[in-house]
């Protein structure tokens, strides 16, 4: 990175932290600290929701995912707008009218303390660990591409977030997210135009997209139903709907965003805004990967985008073998470029026969490319069994640091930091809300004054910050990090959603039945995870339905509670 990049990066980070502390000043009680006194307008709620969901992993992984797998990942988000509508109708008014701080508070109203505690506990484990990954993901990638120390980068991200989250609470989190989303959008837009600009001058943008289409990368919609396929329209609409319902309806990191809305209407508008924006936004981020794919049809890419692994193999006994592969790749690349040019010419002449021939030749060159890559991965694994060979997360930033000019690189690194900080800030804030409201105040110290709870909220935020940084420091190799976070979420979200669906819609299911149903469901979901190949999105559907079915079953077989027992249970 050059001096100009450092200036852009440091100025952006300093601005975010100072702005957050300034906007978050003046909190006098828990309501101000955890709910921003319920003053946020819809656009702040909406952008905060978007910034919370879209971590750095989203912006690093998604272009890489499209680069290697095409556009089909966008289907993952098809269930989101439907979930936004359902939550606007049901959850938003309930949470607002009951004046709760957390989603889990409602569960005690509806069921009993143990169900509230179970849901809060599942949330704390899942969110605590995944926030560690959220911090770790950009750190490992930045360290690989820029030679930064992973641990130091994780600590810097964590500490920067803590600075304004501890002082300003929810208000600081929401207002900084406005700025962070702006920076992210500017950065990604700049990256997109830069890639288009760097395409060969004799290739138009439309021709570039057509080339991507002919290589199968513009596979946005897959109508085939296959439960083992991660991304098709059905897993996106059905599995995605359940996942997003659970994430936005029961995960405090999101519930906390719209609870800060100044009214039911403002919270609803924030969610619906997200429902309209999210799919096109994700499409655009993925599309950057597609344009990047076309760029690398004209400029020779590295075999593996992770520079650390490449350097490691080049200084190993396998260096000769790897260099031979690079030579082979160069020959294939020359051949591939010829086929791309032939394809473009055939498309210009609208000669279907020639298009088909050139397309087949290009596909063969791409298959050779894949074979070379597989061979490179094999020798990397022979050299070091623990080598990080999944380079999906490195594709985009490798391009940024290699081909973009000074200043733009700094801006893009600032995007990575901003995205990571935005989602981590919401997570710290929600972990604090749940710990203070559902655990500390409910179970240990219920009669303290507001100043005490405010102080404890700040201390708990620091505690969670340290925990997440420690998780980040110990996070291992997780393959595609975007998928890893979604997979982890899917293990828990189905059961949590099932608890809330029982609470909202099944009035005859009581607390004990829901509690045991959720415990058994978690055990079954983990068994499915270890022993089957079912795509992870379906865990959300299975988990939710299992809690409902088992809840109904336990309601029939468990002895009915008397009203007095039910009241005693909820007061324990």
């Amino acid at each position, binding site marked *: 990175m050059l001096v100009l990049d450092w200036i852009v990066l440091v100025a952006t980070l300093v601005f975010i932290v100072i702005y957050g502390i300034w906007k978050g000043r003046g909190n006098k009680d828990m309501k101000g600290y955890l709910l921003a006194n319920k003053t946020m307008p819809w656009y702040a709620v909406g952008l905060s929701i978007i910034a919370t969901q879209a971590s750095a992993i989203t912006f690093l992984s998604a272009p890489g995912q499209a680069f290697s797998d095409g*556009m089909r990942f*966008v289907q993952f988000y*098809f269930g989101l*707008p*439907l979930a*936004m*509508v359902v939550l*606007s*109708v*049901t959850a938003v*008014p*309930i949470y*607002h*009218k*009951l004046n709760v701080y957390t989603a889990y508070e*409602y569960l005690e*109203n*509806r069921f009993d303390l143990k169900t509230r505690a179970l849901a809060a506990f599942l949330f704390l484990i899942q969110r605590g660990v995944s926030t560690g990954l959220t911090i770790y993901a950009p750190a490992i990638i930045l360290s690989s591409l820029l030679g930064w120390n992973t641990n130091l980068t994780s600590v810097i991200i964590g500490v920067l977030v803590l600075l304004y989250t501890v002082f300003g609470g929810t208000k600081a989190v929401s207002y900084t997210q406005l700025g962070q989303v702006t920076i992210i959008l500017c950065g990604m837009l700049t990256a997109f135009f830069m890639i288009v600009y760097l395409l060969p001058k004799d290739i138009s943008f439309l021709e570039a*997209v*057509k080339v*991507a*289409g*002919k290589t*199968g990368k*513009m*596979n*946005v*919609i897959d109508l085939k139903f296959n439960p083992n396929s991660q991304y098709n*329209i059905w897993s996106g609409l059905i599995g995605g709907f359940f996942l997003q319902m659970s994430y936005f309806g029961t995960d405090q990191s999101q519930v906390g965003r719209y609870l800060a809305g100044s*009214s*039911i*209407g*403002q919270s*609803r*508008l924030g969610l*619906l805004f997200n*429902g*309209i924006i999210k*799919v*096109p936004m994700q*499409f655009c981020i993925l599309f950057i990967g597609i344009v990047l794919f076309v760029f690398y049809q004209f400029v020779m890419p590295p075999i593996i985008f992770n520079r650390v692994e490449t350097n490691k193999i080049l200084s190993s006994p396998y260096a000769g073998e790897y260099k031979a592969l690079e030579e082979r790749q160069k020959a294939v690349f020359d051949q591939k470029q010829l086929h791309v040019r032939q394809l473009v010419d055939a498309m210009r002449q609208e000669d279907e026969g020639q298009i088909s021939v050139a397309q087949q030749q290009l596909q063969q060159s791409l298959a050779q490319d894949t074979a070379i890559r597989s061979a490179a991965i094999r020798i990397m694994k022979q050299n070091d069994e623990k080598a990080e060979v999944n380079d999906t997360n490195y594709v985009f930033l490798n391009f940024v640091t290699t081909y973009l000019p000074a200043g733009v690189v700094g801006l893009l690194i600032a995007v990575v930091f901003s995205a990571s900080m935005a989602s981590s800030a919401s997570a710290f804030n929600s972990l604090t809300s749940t710990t203070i409201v559902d655990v500390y105040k409910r179970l240990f110290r219920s009669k303290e004054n507001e100043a005490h709870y405010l102080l404890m909220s700040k201390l708990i935020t620091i505690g969670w910050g340290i925990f997440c940084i420690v998780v980040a420091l110990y996070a291992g190799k997780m393959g595609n990090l975007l998928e890893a976070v979604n997979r982890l979420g899917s293990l828990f979200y189905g059961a949590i959603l099932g608890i809330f669906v029982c*609470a*909202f819609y099944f*009035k005859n299911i009581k607390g004990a039945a829901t509690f045991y149903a959720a415990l058994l469901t978690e055990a079954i979901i983990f068994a499915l995870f270890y022993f089957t190949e079912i795509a992870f999105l379906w865990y959300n559907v299975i988990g939710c339905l299992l809690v409902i079915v088992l809840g109904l079953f336990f309601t029939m077989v468990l002895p009915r509670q008397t009203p007095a027992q039910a009241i005693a249970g909820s007061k324990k």
Partner: protein
Amino acid sequence: MADPDEYTTNELPPFIKTWREMYILVIATLFVQILLFYWITQLFS
């Protein structure tokens, strides 16, 4: 027990007459997007 039907709001969405129409707009937007993506898939395949 909280029932969604118990909770209504007098606040209306901007530009649109009712919340119901707002929800229909969001769902319609999704299906237009899916149709557009399907068309893109077919066009560039």
